[in-house]
């Protein structure tokens, strides 16, 4: 089980192009659907905490998932796992720096990969929303938050704090 956890995160790290939220579709499919370690809502809660905590989101959420499942050892395995393949690749590529940077092959692959990441992230929005958009308030809040982020360029942490405050008021028990 621990080995599987480690290897899962090695795999996620190996295909986590783009960093940040681009890992979400992978987490969703592998951790929620495939292994059923968490629900979609729990994944979102961990993501929110990972965003407001300093440090890269992908590392934070990997640590979070590992720790919640198997304590400190789990956290260690997921965090190390997710950086294993990228670190090895960096070590190799840094030797052939010039060739890699000017490589036509790499540039051609990324012409396809970058727009695909946008599609992947939208796919996550689509599959996560049934667990989140529960009433008319969710839709109103969603529009407000997107507007604040895109139009007014409000910092993500401020948006999350605002949403916590509004959530508490709207859903006051």
């Amino acid at each position, binding site marked *: 089980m621990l080995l599987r956890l480690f290897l899962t995160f090695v795999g996620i790290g190996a295909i986590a192009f783009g960093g940040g939220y681009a890992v979400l579709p992978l987490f969703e499919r592998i951790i929620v659907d495939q292994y059923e370690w968490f629900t979609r809502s729990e994944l979102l809660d961990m993501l*929110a905490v990972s965003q407001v905590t300093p440090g890269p989101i992908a590392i934070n959420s990997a*640590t979070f998932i590992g720790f919640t499942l198997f304590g400190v050892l789990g956290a260690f395995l997921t965090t190390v796992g997710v950086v294993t393949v990228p670190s090895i690749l960096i070590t190799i590529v*840094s030797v052939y720096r010039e060739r890699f940077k000017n490589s036509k092959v790499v540039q051609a692959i990324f012409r*396809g990969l970058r727009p695909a990441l946008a599609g992947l992230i939208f796919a996550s929005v*689509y599959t996560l929303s049934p667990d989140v958009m529960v009433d008319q308030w969710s839709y109103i809040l969603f529009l407000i938050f997107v507007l604040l982020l895109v139009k007014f360029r409000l910092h993500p942490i401020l948006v*999350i704090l605002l949403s916590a405050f509004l959530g508490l008021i*709207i859903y006051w*028990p």
Partner: protein
Amino acid sequence: MIPLFEREFVKRYKYLSEDEFFDALVICQSLPGVIAVNFAVYIGLKLRGRFGALVSAIGVALPSFLIIMVIATFLFRYIDNEYVAAVFKGVRVSVIALVFTAGFRLFWRHRHLYGVFIALMTFTLVAIAYVHPFYVIVMMGAYGYLTTKIREVVSHDAS
């Protein structure tokens, strides 16, 4: 985090020149993984070899690692509390909004026909047809490579 790296490593400690910094950035963004960690490994490697890479990777991940463990200990203990649940009902919406915004920004930068087509295909395959993201990533990388190659060959013949 990238401006922070630039200030520390280029301006303050002069470990890298401005050009080297941007080369490093391109490489770190083109490889899978977390950009900040990739960067740390790259700089560690350049300064002190493999051991340097290990030390800087640990350095960049350690604060997150410790803070998250403290928070994780509390979060799921109180998640059933009605007030905490109310907070997270709001927070989840903002996370969806954040994810949507990240996707939208990326999409907007590639809103030409080719980019829209790939984004739409990826969305359909992953969200509707439920294909594993891994295969779709490989497919779209291959698609980018092939279409670029084909275009090169065609324009070569034409000229």
